């Protein structure tokens, strides 16, 4: 893992001191709320429905056991004993006091964490594949370059006040688990003929009220030129992006308005300036960053493990857990393990302080002290020896963390919605809970197979409903919570926009509606056909008909 150098430490500590001073001045009345608001937002502190909310960055979703322990400690000491992991691979605390926030930030800084780049119109915290550095299908670990982007973008003065927020995601594997085509910039790691690392560059993706899938503007940019190329994209956007209308200010609107080709030409022109300036990092520095991401020393082990297979043969739920919650690792005999934060009786993405501590212990004992946060709101132990799976399962079970549903219908993305979020139109969490309850049977879930359900409590789309195989969008219909269903979205390499089926459903109807949609799939599917493939083959018509009757 990356370790802070003296510069990193100095700027984060200075930031804590600065924010402490700002909070003091605000409490004393020397700063008005209007003056203070952008300052607190730049430190991840929002005001939500019940209290302040602090969003802590987990850059590219990577944490150590000690960092996870610290997150648990903060939940316990400054909050109500839990936190919420988000689709940005971050964690949110729902109840911090303004006056204690500087202490929280100081405690985070001690373990090389912070809350910068989690709000405001800057380059946000870069996200990546939660199996990065471990996945068998990976070309190379994208995290060294994610770290390089973090260093370049943190407090970048030119890009501190962009027209709108700006999100970069990066994948090192052809199977995209980072939804790169749905980001302002998406980067797909590739190797050229000589084996050199570079990136396909995709721009102008985004969700919100105008969902757009990003477009490729360059097939390959060598990693040594990446920063100057990104700088050129940001500069074109910063100059030409709209500032007159918040809803038209994202880069996707600019790219759509100009056309991807014209936008690409402008970037090429600007790149002639940026690449001749000393922005790009020398190879030696890139190499230095790479050293922090040296893979852990894993022994090649047997892929077939008798103790796991025997238990699986007699325990359907354990067998499902092994099948669903493990992912192929580069090193034989190992897996990356998904710890589902979607218990059927809980809240998607929430973890208690005690659970965080359990995960931290497991990371130390079984995963070379590494934890990942996934954009699907789960936690990952990236480097687990297969023969230890049963042991880990038993420990997770005791902590309520052994739900076997990774990748299945109840592994939903669910945004905080109207239970917490000041922007929400409708509650998401109780709908998620009702769906989880309805589909509680593991055999049935397993039979339905891979299905990504994603739910947002408003059009801001934090719950990625546009990219859901089934998407649910909460709306306000004359003061009453109402839920629309969308179908056929994907956040992966085959990215697609989900299509709205029709008028929404009330809270007490939406679970039945989901069940109806699933029933159409089960009735129509061909052998081994997944839900998404069936929707693509059939189109939305049969689903619409089942929900609304024949037209």
């Amino acid at each position, binding site marked *: 893992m990356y370790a802070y150098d003296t510069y990193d430490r100095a700027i984060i500590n200075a930031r804590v001191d600065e924010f402490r001073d700002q909070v003091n001045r*605000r409490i004393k009345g020397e700063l008005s*709320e209007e003056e203070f608001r952008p300052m607190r937002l730049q430190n991840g502190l929002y005001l939500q*429905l*019940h*209290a*302040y909310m602090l969003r802590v960055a987990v850059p590219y979703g990577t944490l150590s056991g000690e960092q996870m322990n610290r997150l648990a400690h903060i939940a316990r000491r400054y909050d109500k004993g839990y936190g919420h992991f988000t689709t940005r691979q971050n964690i949110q605390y729902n109840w911090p*006091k303004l006056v204690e926030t500087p202490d929280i930030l100081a405690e985070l800084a001690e373990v090389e964490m912070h809350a910068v780049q989690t709000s405001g119109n800057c380059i946000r915290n870069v996200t990546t594949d939660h199996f990065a550095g471990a996945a068998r299908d990976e070309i190379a670990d994208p995290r060294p370059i994610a770290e390089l982007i973090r260093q370049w973008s943190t407090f970048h003065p030119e890009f501190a006040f962009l027209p709108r927020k700006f999100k970069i995601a990066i994948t090192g594997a052809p199977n995209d688990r980072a939804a790169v085509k749905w980001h302002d910039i998406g980067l797909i790691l590739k190797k050229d003929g000589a084996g050199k690392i570079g990136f396909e560059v995709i721009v102008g993706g985004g969700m919100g009220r105008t969902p757009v899938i990003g477009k490729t503007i360059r097939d390959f940019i060598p990693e040594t030129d990446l920063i100057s190329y990104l700088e050129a994209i940001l500069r074109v956007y910063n100059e030409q992006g709209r500032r007159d209308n918040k809803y038209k200010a994202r880069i996707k609107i600019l790219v759509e308005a100009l056309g991807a080709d014209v936008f690409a030409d402008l970037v090429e022109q600007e790149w002639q300036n940026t690449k001749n300036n000393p922005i790009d990092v020398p190879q030696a520095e890139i190499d230095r960053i790479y050293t922090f991401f040296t893979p852990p020393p894993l022994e090649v082990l047997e892929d077939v493990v008798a103790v796991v297979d025997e238990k699986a043969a007699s325990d359907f739920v354990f067998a499902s857990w092994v099948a669903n919650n493990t992912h192929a690792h580069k090193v034989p005999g190992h897996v990356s393990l998904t710890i589902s934060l979607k218990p059927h009786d809980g809240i998607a993405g929430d973890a208690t302080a005690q659970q965080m501590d359990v995960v931290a212990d497991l990371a130390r004992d079984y995963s070379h002290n590494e934890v990942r946060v996934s954009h699907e709101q789960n936690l990952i132990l990236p480097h687990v020896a297969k023969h230890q799976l049963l042991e880990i399962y038993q420990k997770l079970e005791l902590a309520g963390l052994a739900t076997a549903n990774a990748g299945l219908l109840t592994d939903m993305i669910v945004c905080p919605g109207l*239970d917490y979020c000041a922007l929400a139109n409708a509650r998401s969490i*109780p709908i998620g*809970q009702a769906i989880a309850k309805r589909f509680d049977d593991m055999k049935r879930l397993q039979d339905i197979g891979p299905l990504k359900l994603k739910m947002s409590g408003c059009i801001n789309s934090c719950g990625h409903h546009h990219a859901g195989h089934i998407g649910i969008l909460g709306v306000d219909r004359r003061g009453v919570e109402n839920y629309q269903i969308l179908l056929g979205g994907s956040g992966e390499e085959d990215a697609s926009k989900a299509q709205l089926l029709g008028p929404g459903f009330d809270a007490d109807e939406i679970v039945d509606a989901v069940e109806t949609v699933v029933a159409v799939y089960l009735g129509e599917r061909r052998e081994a056909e997944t839900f998404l493939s069936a929707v693509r083959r059939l189109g939305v018509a049969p689903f619409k008909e089942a929900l609304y009757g024949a037209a």
Partner: protein
Amino acid sequence: MIIANRLDTGRVVFLGADNQWHTQADKAITATDETVLEDLWAKAQADLDANIIIDAQLIAAEKNDHVAMPSHIKHIIQAQGPTVRTDLGYQVSPDWEG
């Protein structure tokens, strides 16, 4: 009624008849008369200016058995806490100060 958050803790509060900010919605003063509403808002504005509260809003309310509650689901949730963590919301600790 007028709803706001305390500046220092973020705690949801309601303006009461005693001109104080209360953590319970049933202590909120409600009014329909324009001039009374103006007076209430003047008090809220004074406390915004005095940096006691932030984000004050005049919201619709209803009375059931003489007990005031906000009308809209959003403000009911603000008054009571998240509907999904009733073990942690204001329902269990109405005096919780943040």
